[in-house]
């Protein structure tokens, strides 16, 4: 009898426990309107969710009458205030996320710009199709990614810009126009990578490709071997379709050890149907715990790096569908702290300059003991000159740095000093830096990395003479 009660209690408890975790996860998956960097809290006048095209037009019409400033927000993973303007109206695009048209034969899809890459993946996966270029994570909106020219692990399909067939833009006057390589083509290089300054991207038509089965080829190497290895074994090997690497930030192997994953076309593509169920987020407590240790201490960083390497060895030869490679886990990186935040920085360096660049970076960071660098991911971006705000000025490696920092003025200043030194160093190696992150860079650094920025701001002023669309990034750098 007693046992029965005990069993009943424990079972009911397990049920309630699961229900609570489930509800909590739903609650978490509805992000609030704040920039993910948390360093630029901005009071806005109001937040309007984009419900439909007519409503969007009305918002612009009213803003023109009331002379309000508009900013556009998707998932707000841009950390430099690109989605906000003080006392402006923030248009929240997240609910504007329908799939509008799908052409299986031509492999084309048209989506509203608030749709996330995940929304598209879920729609096209049953048809055996995949994105041509996506980011490593799929949580961002299409409009947001296009406005910042996101990039990912694919090394064969060019840039995100290449996959955009056309888009429709809601202009500062409230009209919807088609923008493509043949229609209003003069706007195309400005709207893509336009940081939301030329109007609202309403919907986008994207080129898709076939889903494929890949086998992970994982290797460990030293940074000095990497550039040659990459040119010969990765770019030079047609069967490698995607690539990602990591370089150690652990004190024992700082900026020397690397491990990489090549996603190589699997010999038996017929097995794809065994692997093409879209994966969800796995249980994250363990990686989250070790990342937590790494945040705390130098020994934690050593342990975290060893565990990452072991995991990389263990997953060698793993089979995975292209769609699943393009939806990597992100939840374990979510970070809540009262006084600290985690920011990203991204630097691009030409492949041939990688080794001297890392040598200089090592010398710079070895003196910065308080700089809490948690991770560096390395990917490849091919040269692309289709857009004005272009960062891929050559065939380059992109290094994404995850940095833990405090949120006080002093912390921001201290991190800023190091970041500016890193940007100088990157520029000295013919590199560029990525704009969607916290605006630590000086105006001079922006102009050095993006020589066409003057033209970009000028075009913006002509196209949107009342500056109906603006954001903190524009405010900071265009004056």
């Amino acid at each position: 009898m007693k046992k029965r009660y005990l069993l009943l209690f424990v079972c009911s408890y397990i049920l309630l426990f699961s229900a609570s975790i489930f509800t909590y996860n739903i609650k978490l998956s509805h992000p609030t309107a704040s920039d993910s960097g948390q360093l630029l809290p901005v009071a806005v006048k109001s937040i309007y969710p984009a419900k439909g095209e007519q409503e969007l037009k009305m918002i612009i019409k009213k803003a023109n009458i009331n002379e309000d400033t508009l900013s556009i927000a998707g998932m707000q993973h841009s950390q430099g205030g690109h989605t906000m303007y003080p006392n402006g109206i923030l248009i929240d695009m997240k609910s504007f996320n329908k799939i509008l048209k799908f052409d299986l034969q031509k492999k084309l899809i048209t989506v509203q710009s608030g749709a996330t890459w995940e929304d598209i993946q879920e729609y096209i996966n049953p048809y055996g199709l995949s994105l041509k270029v996506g980011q490593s994570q799929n949580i961002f909106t299409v409009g947001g990614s296009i406005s910042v020219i996101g990039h990912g692990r694919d090394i064969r399909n060019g840039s995100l810009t290449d996959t955009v067939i056309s888009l429709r833009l809601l202009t500062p006057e409230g009209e919807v126009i088609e923008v493509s390589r043949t229609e209003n083509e003069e706007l195309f290089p400005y709207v893509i990578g336009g940081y939301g300054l030329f109007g609202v991207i309403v919907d986008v038509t994207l080129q898709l490709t076939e889903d494929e089965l890949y086998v992970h080829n994982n290797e460990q190497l030293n940074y000095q071997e990497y550039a040659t290895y990459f040119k010969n074994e990765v770019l030079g090997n047609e069967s490698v379709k995607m690539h990602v690497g990591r370089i150690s930030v652990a004190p024992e192997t700082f900026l020397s050890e690397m491990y990489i994953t090549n996603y190589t076309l699997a010999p038996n593509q017929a097995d794809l149907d065994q692997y093409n169920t879209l994966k969800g987020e796995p249980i994250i407590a363990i990686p989250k715990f070790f990342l937590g240790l790494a945040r705390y201490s130098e020994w934690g960083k050593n342990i975290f790096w060893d565990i990452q390497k072991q995991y990389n060895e263990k997953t060698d030869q793993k089979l995975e569908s292209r769609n699943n490679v393009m939806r990597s886990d992100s939840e374990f990186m979510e970070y809540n702290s009262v006084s600290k935040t985690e920011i990203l920085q991204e630097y691009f360096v030409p492949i041939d300059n990688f080794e001297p660049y890392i040598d200089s970076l090592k010398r710079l960071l070895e003196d910065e003991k308080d700089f809490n660098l948690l991770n560096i991911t390395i990917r490849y971006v091919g040269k692309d000159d289709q857009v004005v705000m272009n960062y891929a000025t050559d065939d380059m490696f992109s290094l994404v740095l995850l940095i833990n920092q405090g949120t006080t003025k002093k912390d921001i200043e201290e991190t800023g000093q190091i970041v500016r030194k890193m940007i100088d160093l990157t520029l000295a190696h013919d590199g560029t830096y990525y704009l969607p992150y916290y605006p630590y860079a000086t105006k001079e650094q922006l102009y050095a990395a993006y020589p066409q920025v003057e033209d970009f701001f000028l075009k913006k002023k002509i196209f949107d003479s009342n500056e109906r669309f603006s954001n903190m990034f524009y405010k900071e750098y265009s004056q």
Partner: protein
Amino acid sequence: MTFRTFLYYQSTIVMASSMIFPFYILLLKNVGNNYAQFGWAYGIFALTAAFCYPMIGKLSDKIGDRILFLIYSWSMAVLLLLFPLVSTVWQIYGLQICMGILSAVQKNTEKTALARQVKKETAGGEIGKYHIRISVAAAIAIILTGYIVDFLTIASIFYIGSLIYMVSSVMLMTKRGGKVKDVTNN
């Protein structure tokens, strides 16, 4: 319930409750807007507890300490599952009322169980020893929880706390007999 079981049980629940209370404030800070709401949340908690004590005291003489401990542990295990889900200050007030009642149950029953156990002549020494053990458990829990919140999220401490309460209930349900008996069995 033997004195040993009582000690184990108390150390376990004190660990769970010490995990929650100091950090619980962080949750209030996220949900509430001002210090007045803070004051109210704790005021409601203390007031509810105050009014419950007489009733719980009588109840403990009638149904025994073990049953009351069981009610306390199971209720806390379930209640903590609601904490990560709150989003308004009114929900916090509601939870505080429940926490007030349960806190009264725990505090009163802890004392009655102790009173029934110790000898009058050596009560001072015995209760002193009892408190060392309980306080050490509390201290360890508080320090470890700080790291858990930093490494995981604030919500995780409520889930871990809830699991510990669940374990404490199972411990009480599976262990029987001994010196500190239910009064009804005396």
